[in-house]
């Protein structure tokens, strides 16, 4: 077993680290505070081919593997997890869905600008009454002549207010149950689709989250993604890929928490000695470092399985579950290590703790991951 990254992967990680230190670190606190989508940063990300790493070059991507994308999400999230997540959901779900299930025409029309980072993708599944229970959705898409007409209300759409290309899930045949959901590519500006105001969130604040309202929204039949009735299966495949990204996001948060905790505990002196010398603190850091390694290996292993074209659904859930819970647990510890200073704005650990919480919720809550995993191992 070889746990080494390739030279290219190491260089790309190093370059992303430098990029993040230069362009992301200086604005991370500000975009969090103001809930601002940093369009200027995403332009730079597009220029460096960071927005479509695992997509083939003929479709606008960099043509690298999924692990490389995973490393980049991790390094970005270490500086700003909102930015890491935006890249993750854009690439891991939106681009990936078109890459895997789109027709040649759809790839040329929609995937190329997305993978080049010129268009931002969104994944529109959750509804006010249908979170974990995807089947409770009520949004419908009725065939009418050359079009489908979409009606319904979606919520919690990341990149809702800022997106360009939306993957929208709706019932084409409610009676068909699990085989009744379909997916559509809906470009920004389509009449009848409207994004709401972005939500004022606890964390992940610079990622824009909103409702999406569909009112007699007509999309041509050529915008149906994959086959009619395959929506649920495609959404699950999207989640498999996306969850590796959320795991990477969590690993990035955890690495940042460890970096901050090491630095601060060596500097802060109480009772005449740096607090790192107090065993209570050093053991917190030992546990943090250990869980970080475990989370990282689970995440990379899931990405490697994907790259080897093996099933990786269970592994993606395990990585996401473990990494997310570790990120939450240890960012709380990181704030603890920083004492009162960690509770104030301006301390990075304060943002890390707020940002960590979402990793246990979206793309399937931790409970939902346990359902996937137990479903797999109890089969």
């Amino acid at each position, binding site marked *: 077993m070889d746990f080494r990254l390739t030279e290219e992967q190491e*260089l790309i990680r*190093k*370059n992303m680290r430098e990029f993040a230190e230069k362009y992301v670190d200086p604005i991370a606190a500000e975009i969090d505070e103001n809930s601002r989508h940093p369009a200027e940063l995403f332009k730079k990300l597009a220029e460096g081919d960071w927005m479509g790493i695992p997509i083939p070059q003929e479709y606008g991507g960099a043509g690298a593997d999924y692990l490389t994308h995973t490393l980049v999400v991790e390094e970005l999230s270490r500086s700003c997890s909102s930015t890491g997540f935006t890249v993750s959901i854009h690439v891991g779900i939106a681009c990936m869905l078109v890459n895997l299930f789109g027709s040649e025409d759809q790839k040329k029309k929609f995937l190329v600008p997305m993978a080049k980072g010129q268009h931002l993708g969104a994944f529109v599944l959750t509804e006010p009454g249908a979170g974990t229970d995807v089947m409770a959705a009520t949004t419908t898409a009725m065939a009418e002549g050359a079009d489908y007409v979409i009606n319904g209300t979606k919520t919690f759409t990341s990149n809702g207010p800022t997106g360009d290309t939306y993957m929208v899930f709706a019932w084409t045949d409610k009676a068909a149950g699990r085989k009744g959901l379909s997916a559509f590519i809906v470009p920004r500006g389509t009449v009848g689709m409207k994004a709401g105001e972005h939500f004022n969130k606890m964390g992940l604040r610079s990622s824009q989250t909103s409702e999406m309202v569909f009112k007699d929204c007509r999309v041509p039949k050529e915008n149906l993604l994959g086959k009619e009735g395959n929506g649920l299966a495609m959404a699950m495949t999207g989640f498999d890929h996306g969850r590796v990204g959320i795991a990477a996001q969590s690993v990035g948060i955890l690495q940042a928490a460890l970096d901050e905790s090491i630095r601060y505990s060596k500097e802060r002196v109480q009772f005449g000695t740096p607090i790192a010398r107090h065993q209570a603190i050093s053991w917190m850091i030992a546990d943090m470092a250990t869980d970080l390694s475990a989370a990282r290996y689970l995440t990379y292993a899931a990405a490697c399985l994907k790259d080897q074209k093996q099933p990786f659904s269970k592994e993606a859930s395990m990585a996401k579950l473990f990494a997310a819970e570790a990120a939450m647990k240890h960012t709380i510890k990181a704030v603890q290590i920083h004492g009162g200073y960690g509770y104030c704005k301006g301390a990075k650990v304060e943002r890390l703790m707020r940002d960590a919480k979402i990793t246990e919720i979206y793309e399937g809550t931790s409970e939902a991951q346990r359902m996937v995993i137990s479903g797999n191992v109890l089969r």
Partner: protein
Amino acid sequence: MPVLVACFKWVVDEAYIRRTSAGELDLSSVSYKISDYDRNALEEAARMKEASGGSVLAVTVGVPESTKGVKDALSRGADQAFFIADPSFGMLGASETAAILAEVIRTRIGNFDLVLCGEGSSDLYNQQVGIRLAERLGIPCLSFVQKLELEEGRVVAERRLEDGIERVSAPLPAVVTVLPDINIPRIPGVKDTLSASRKPVVTIGKDDLAVAPDAHFRTISLAASRLDRQCERFGADETDIRRFIGALRQKGVLR
């Protein structure tokens, strides 16, 4: 179309060097990087090529493990690399490095216009290799360069000196050693890194060289520098200033 040669060294990234509680340097988990000013040399060569055509050849002397450095250089705009490698090349002195570079540049490249080096390396900062290389090649050398242009067979450069800025020119071929102010090196994009692996690399071993430099340097020990603090505080009033002077006298700093 100018042929530009950029020399670079693959060095320990000092950000990863740790200091043990015993005051020693811990190099066990270091990473490596292209020496800082050499990145500026590579960048300047790549920009000249992007502006006016030609080709960029990256040359490095180092240990065989430096392959990642070669890819790094190729991802920064170089078209081809010459990788001169031997396990004994980790501890070469400036004169040996210059001798090897000169031989390879003369025999393998031949028709070159400009050689760009960093002013000094991030690890040793001897500021010797560029100048010695020019001497070996028998061509002019312009050091401390912060601005650079090629003009009809000549190189025109701005040199930043202690008491001013000097504008000089020299006939090509020539060697320049550049300061970090000359440019801001790019951060290679993903495709730049991926395509680096497909660019040609000429690997040259010790046996392929006519010069047979032996490493004159041996590392006997490495120690962290120490800065001891007394943590005494003084105010700005007269008594404290007197106390401050007294303390300096006592420590032997003032006589």
